[in-house]
């Protein structure tokens, strides 16, 4: 998992750098007049913004892939599944215990047994 955290840190840094570049491009575009001319600063600046945004999209997808791979290579899914199976088994156990009242009747049986033994004592006959 330590590797994953480092990867995520690098991912965040890459994202922040791209976002900073995009903000700079936006700042540049704010100061240039609109133009359809392919040679204009406006069109060039927008092309630059498109490239950065495409990089951001790819970065988002690669981050998801890295996490998907990290999950695939670990045992976390199995760990959580085991945990929920245990919890489910406990829930079933309690539910079944309620149906059989074994725990409670056992206490009463114990009491009844004591009384029966007392009744069997010779001095009570």
């Amino acid at each position: 998992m330590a590797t994953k955290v480092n990867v995520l840190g690098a991912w965040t840094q890459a994202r922040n750098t791209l976002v900073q570049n995009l903000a700079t491009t936006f700042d540049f575009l704010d100061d240039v007049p609109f133009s359809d001319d392919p040679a204009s600063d406006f069109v060039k600046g927008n092309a630059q913004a498109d490239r950065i945004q495409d990089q951001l999209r790819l970065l988002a997808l690669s981050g998801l892939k890295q996490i998907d791979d990290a999950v695939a290579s670990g045992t976390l899914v199995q760990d959580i599944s085991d945990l929920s199976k245990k919890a489910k088994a406990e829930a079933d156990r309690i539910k079944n215990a309620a149906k059989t009242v074994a725990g409670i009747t056992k206490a009463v049986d114990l009491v009844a047994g004591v009384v029966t033994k007392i009744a069997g004592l010779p001095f009570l006959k």
Partner: protein
Amino acid sequence: MSIQVGPGGIRPGLVPVSRKIALVAMLAITSGCISPAFRDSVGQFGTVTKTTVTAQGQQLAAISATEQERIRAQLAANRVDLVLAPSCAETLAPNDTGTADPPAPVCTVARADGNSLTDAPRYEHILALGAALSAYADSLIALAADSSQDQKAFAGSLSALATSLGGLDGAIQRVTGGDRAASQPQLNAVATLVAEAGNLYFAHERSRVLKRIIIAGDPTVQRAVDLLTGADAGIDLYNRNALLLHLRATANNARRLAANPGTSATAMRAAQDALFAEVATYNRYAAGVQRFRAIGAAHTQLVRAARANASAADLAAAIQAIIHLAGTAHDTVTTLTPEQGSNNNGN
């Protein structure tokens, strides 16, 4: 709480009977917190966690669909020559070994230029992790269920208890020589007491097991939360980027019209209204990154409450964390509907 039997009162040897039955009740009451607040909190945590996981699954599916669409559009735009792979013919003669080895051939499409076709991402492992967390939430919900169902089952099984009490009554009759009718009210009191003890026992069991599971599961849940938070960061970037791309197109359209002296005021107004609306949509997008962090924080608070035997302060902190979690989950679900439309025309 007297269970003295017979008109002559109880014999010395029977005193432990009342004490033992009282002990059952006392054990159930004192051996752990049986306040329903803890179980309610856990149940709510489970429900909101499931909602959050479902929302993330929908967003991942939307990203997969968008990327699939992009890949297909590029194939068409580039006029890529697509052909059937030889495996399509091989499907006519499947192996009949009855085993998975070798795997049965599957018909696929290939590029005639020999380059491999790009598959859309599926994120099946992240989805599996989300599903596992959701199953965990389901189990917590089942454990945190109101114990009234147990009580119903318990009441339905009182025949076993009645048999035991019958045996007890018979033994008592033999000891005291008393008459059965006179002992009946006392026996009913015993039955009621035992039934109450049973109910307390089941409520206590649910709380006890919940605490144990939550404490034991916390490290695993926190690791899952870390990974799913990372996935949310990717999802957020992808979705926001798509919305911003759309926003830029709308803004550039408004600038194009503004730069043209012939643009009517009506057209200008429409373009600028569209820009204001797009900005509002963009700002409404709720960051999902906090959702799984909120799950982690709420689970941590539940662990603290469990360790402190659900003390009032720790329970209050857990409930606060769950309310925050519910808020972030609600924001996400609210945002999802308009956002999905943007996914398909953004990136």
